[in-house]
């Protein structure tokens, strides 16, 4: 891990910045681009490193820099159901569908979000757990939708799939920062997109994106693909193994 960080910093400092419109440029790198799931996998953590580069001509800003790192995981269709009372019993009555929702979402900032930018700007720039997946276009005519959206965020936060850390980004020097990203074991496999935004005085100065992926490896990968590609053989093998275990137990425990 230590060696990895040193390598990364070296790579980072030698990276050529993309020519931006503004005075600041954002350079970012991840400690890894691939999280491998093996049989002892219990979640992982990676680190986002970034460097704010200023060209010589621009004057120093009055307001300090602030960084917002948003990680959006693979998207799935999610259904939120609500239990209601019908007579004496509680049953699921109404539901809302959320197509293409990230099952994983993490927002890390260097300061509390309301100190970095206004609520209107947060909505526009898609900052924060509630805004990160808001569709840009249109009105909601469904007035109940808000309740379901809040419940979705609350439940996934409880499962540590959604997280907000308003002290998650640390400035190591006035220009160099790092942010740890926790990936819990229940986070789905697939592509993860990392978006890093540089703010000062409530406006975006620079933006940078990168990504990583979570994949199964080794025996985990071969078992999962066998289950999907050869379901009949896989099923027969599991059933046969189950019966073998049952028979073995009687042999081992035979006393009478």
């Amino acid at each position: 891990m230590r060696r990895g960080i040193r390598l990364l910093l070296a790579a980072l400092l030698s990276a050529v910045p993309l020519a931006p419109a503004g005075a600041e440029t954002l350079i970012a790198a991840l400690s890894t681009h691939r999280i491998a799931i093996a049989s002892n996998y219990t979640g992982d953590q990676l680190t986002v490193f970034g460097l704010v580069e200023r060209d010589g001509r621009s004057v120093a800003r009055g307001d300090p820099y602030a960084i917002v790192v948003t990680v959006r995981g693979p998207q799935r269709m999610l259904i939120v159901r609500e239990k209601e009372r019908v007579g004496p019993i509680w049953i699921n009555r109404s539901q809302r569908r959320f197509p293409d929702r990230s099952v994983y979402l993490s927002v890390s900032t260097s300061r509390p979000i309301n100190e970095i930018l206004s609520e209107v700007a947060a909505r526009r720039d898609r900052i924060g757990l509630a805004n990160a997946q808001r569709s840009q276009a249109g009105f909601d005519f469904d007035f109940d939708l808000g309740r379901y959206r809040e419940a979705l965020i609350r439940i996934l936060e409880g499962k540590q799939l959604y997280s907000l850390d308003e002290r998650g980004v640390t400035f190591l020097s006035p220009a160099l920062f790092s942010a740890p990203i926790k990936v819990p074991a229940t986070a789905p496999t697939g592509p993860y997109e990392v978006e890093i935004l540089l703010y000062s005085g409530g406006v975006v100065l620079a933006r940078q994106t990168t990504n990583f992926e979570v994949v199964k490896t080794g025996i985990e990968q071969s078992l999962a693909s066998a289950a999907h590609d050869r379901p009949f053989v896989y099923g027969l093998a599991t059933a046969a193994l189950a019966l073998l275990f049952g028979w073995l137990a009687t042999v081992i425990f035979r006393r009478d």
Partner: protein
Amino acid sequence: MQIYLPIAELPISIFLVLGLSGAVGFISGLFGVGGGFLLTPLLIFLDIPPAVAVATVAAQVAGSSMTGVLTYWRRNALDFKLGGILVGGGIVGTIMGVLFFNSMRRLGQLELVITLSYVTLFTCIGGLMLFDAVRAAMRDRAGKPVRLRREAGSHPAWMGLPLRMRFPRSQLYASVIPIAGLAVIIGFIGAVLGVGGGFMLVPALIYFFRIPPAVVVGTSLFQILVTMTGATVLHAVTNQSVDIILAMLLLVGGVIGAQFGGRAARNLNVSSFRLLLALLILSVGLRFAVELFLPPSEPYSVIVPEGVQR
């Protein structure tokens, strides 16, 4: 110590799973029930996706009933003739149950049907059995003999229907029609609820046909063995939701537990056997009733629909 489950897609503590499956295996061996009705809710409680829990438990139940079948067979406490008829009726019932299951899912009321049937079935069967067991125990204490075996000439009417067959091992001479009918009904309910049905079959054979409990348990395990082996393959082919690693862990705990359960069953007298099984079934029913009648602390739930995942 944690191990990652490739199909359920989460890590789980090895010792927790071994402990749980060992305890359920003990109960399974003791009463001749598959134990699926206990293990499936426990696994779902541990955050394992319901489809994976149901399918994987089928494999575990197949394995642990294999142990039980071999043990009872060796002790001559297994009636293959009766078991064969139960398997045949069970297959017909299972097919009908799967068709009903799919039509309820299309109507969007599957979850309610499942919870309601769990509550009604378990509390009714458990309550009736408890009532009967307590009454038998009281009669026992009063010094009157417990009337377990049929008395000569006191056959219930359904045994006298046509197509009578002799089941020497079960000490039964009765019509095939009510036995096959019972198997069809239990197969139907089992398919809808995703359970083997042993918890219904065992009391039904004891109460309706007065078959000796020792033979009932072995024969019921035989029926469960056949249906659950088929169910494992079917789940793997249709949903790809059988987790082989989880199944192996459950099996190790389950077969060991079932061994001790099978031994304990021999030292248990009939009335305490009935009382314990009644309490067990009743408590599962009450557990589901609590969920249905008490206001939930979190009224919302988030689900990822099946089939949308890769």
